């Protein structure tokens, strides 16, 4: 039998069901792995004391013959997803001592499915970043090369799965924060259709872009967790049902490649040559690959850096040192705000909130935010239109493999460009999946598939085909 920490979700469930090992043994194996490995990686901010009690509860249920999709399986959550009675800080000093007052819907559904939530993982502060270097509690390192970043913002969740410290984890994706670290760490990462997974209890970055999704070792596992998480939720009015976006065309294994977008600046040679092999492999699997034109898609990142800071500046206004979190005294009530936000927020958060304030300010609103929204509509139209001709759009997930710690921290724009291929899916709300596609030396590379709204099923079909998983 495989070592317990090497099991994927499907294998772990099978072993638990057949009584080959207990949930306690499985969870303890992962906790030992964390003890041994996480000192150098820094994926976790906290291991929950409740983990072993949850495992024992799962073992009782297994003995009673219960069979639930995640029963007894150790899963980690990003530090911006609320779990009642447990700390949740969004990796920010301003929420350092915050204890969740309620459960996020994602946590409720995972627990109803039997998951053992073992701890919370490090991320860029308020999910703002592409390397997990912006955490107030120090960076996370890539478990495959400790000199490199794990990507971000959900870098801790990606590193935890990649480093065999849990079987799966949850992250959140606003512009690539699940897919980019999944690619850098060699795991599978899914950003579902906007509204597919409830955002209730997710600490908001940009509400029109944010989605929760899983990191897993296989595409089948991604699908299993997606099935647990998805669905309407009365506590998030933007959630959709399976009927919201009916299927428009039969799946015909037709993949579009936005060729000119792939010639953007800054794409490494190894990513380019890996992408050629990816195309070959899909062809060999019987897929038809066609070049497509998406003239506005190249503006996605620019639109993103208007819409996201604008929404963030509004969402983060609630951290005022009055209702929760960190509080710093000033001379009077107003000065309390200045002091609390000035030292509670880290540099990147201050940068984006001030930028968001600018693009929304009178005199610049139409030039930036107004034009950004119009262009967002155009990009959305363009992408949705293309899905009448092709089932999927294929790109690399990232323009390079994982970069070195410190390599991009001095130049925010170069960091932002790491999300060039992932941002369009958030702009248009469509689902996207990153799966491992090869290596540059020891560093993993990823491919990204995008599908039309509501067509996660097609992503899973093609993803399993590519990785040779049985359907």
């Amino acid at each position, binding site marked *: 039998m495989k070592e317990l920490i090497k099991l994927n979700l499907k294998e772990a469930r099978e072993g638990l069901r057949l009584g080959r090992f207990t949930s306690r043994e499985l969870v303890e194996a992962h906790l030992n792995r964390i003890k041994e490995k996480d000192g150098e990686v820094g994926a976790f901010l906290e291991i929950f004391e409740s983990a072993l009690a949850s495992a024992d509860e799962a073992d009782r249920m297994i003995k009673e013959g219960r069979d639930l999709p995640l029963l007894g399986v150790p899963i980690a959550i990003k530090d911006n997803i609320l779990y009642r009675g447990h700390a949740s800080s969004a990796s920010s000093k301003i929420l350092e001592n915050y204890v969740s007052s309620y459960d996020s819907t994602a946590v409720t559904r995972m627990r109803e499915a039997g998951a053992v939530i073992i701890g919370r993982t490090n991320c860029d502060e308020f999910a703002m970043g592409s390397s997990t270097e912006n955490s107030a509690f120090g960076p996370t390192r890539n478990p495959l090369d400790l000199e490199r970043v794990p990507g971000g913002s959900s870098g801790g969740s990606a590193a935890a799965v990649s480093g065999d410290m849990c079987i799966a984890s949850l992250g959140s994706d606003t512009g690539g924060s699940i897919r980019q670290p999944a690619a850098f760490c060699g795991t599978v990462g899914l950003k579902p259709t906007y509204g597919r997974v409830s955002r209730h209890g997710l600490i908001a970055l940009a509400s029109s872009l944010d989605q929760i999704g899983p990191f897993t070792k296989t595409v089948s596992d991604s699908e299993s967790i997606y099935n647990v998480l998805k669905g309407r939720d009365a506590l998030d*009015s933007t959630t959709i049902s399976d009927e919201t976006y009916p299927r428009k065309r039969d799946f015909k294994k037709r993949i579009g490649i936005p060729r000119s977008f792939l010639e953007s600046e800054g794409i490494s040679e190894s990513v380019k040559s890996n992408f050629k092999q990816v195309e070959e492999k899909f062809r060999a699997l019987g897929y038809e690959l066609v070049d497509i034109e998406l003239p506005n898609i190249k503006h996605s990142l*620019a639109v993103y850096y208007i819409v996201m800071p604008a929404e963030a500046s509004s969402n983060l206004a609630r951290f005022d040192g009055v209702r929760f979190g960190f*509080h710093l005294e000033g001379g009077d009530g107003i000065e309390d705000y200045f002091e609390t936000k000035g030292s509670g927020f880290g540099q990147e958060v201050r940068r984006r909130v001030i930028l968001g304030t600018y693009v929304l300010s009178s005199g610049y609103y139409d030039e930036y935010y107004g*034009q950004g929204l119009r262009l967002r509509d155009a990009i959305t*139209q363009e992408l949705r239109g293309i899905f009448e001709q092709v089932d999927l759009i294929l790109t690399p997930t990232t323009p390079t493999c994982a970069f070195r710690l410190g390599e991009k921290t001095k130049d925010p724009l170069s960091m932002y460009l790491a999300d060039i291929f992932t941002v369009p899916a958030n702009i248009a709300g469509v689902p996207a999946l990153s799966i491992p596609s090869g290596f540059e030396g020891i560093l993993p590379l990823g491919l990204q598939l995008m599908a039309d709204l509501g067509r996660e099923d097609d992503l899973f079909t093609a993803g399993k085909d590519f990785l040779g998983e049985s359907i």
Partner: protein
Amino acid sequence: MDKEKVQKLAQLARIKISDIEAENLSREFASILGYVKDIGSVSKDTRSVSPESFPVRNIMRDDEPSHEAGFYADRLLSAAPHQEGGYIKVKKILQ
């Protein structure tokens, strides 16, 4: 954007930043805004998304109490830095 402008925006956002940070931000904003500026060159004559393409809208719940008054009060108050007698405590606002 000069550093005075950055300080003015920080003032609006209620964030205290140092002059050095304002100066760094003014340089960084020049590069970020230079990058996003290219959206201005795209024709504004973009078709707006038709309502049918986003079928999710106006989902409202009934306007009635969803739980007993005070049910969540202690839990939420316990998160506040200062509280007194079932209220969040702040400094005097009107002198």
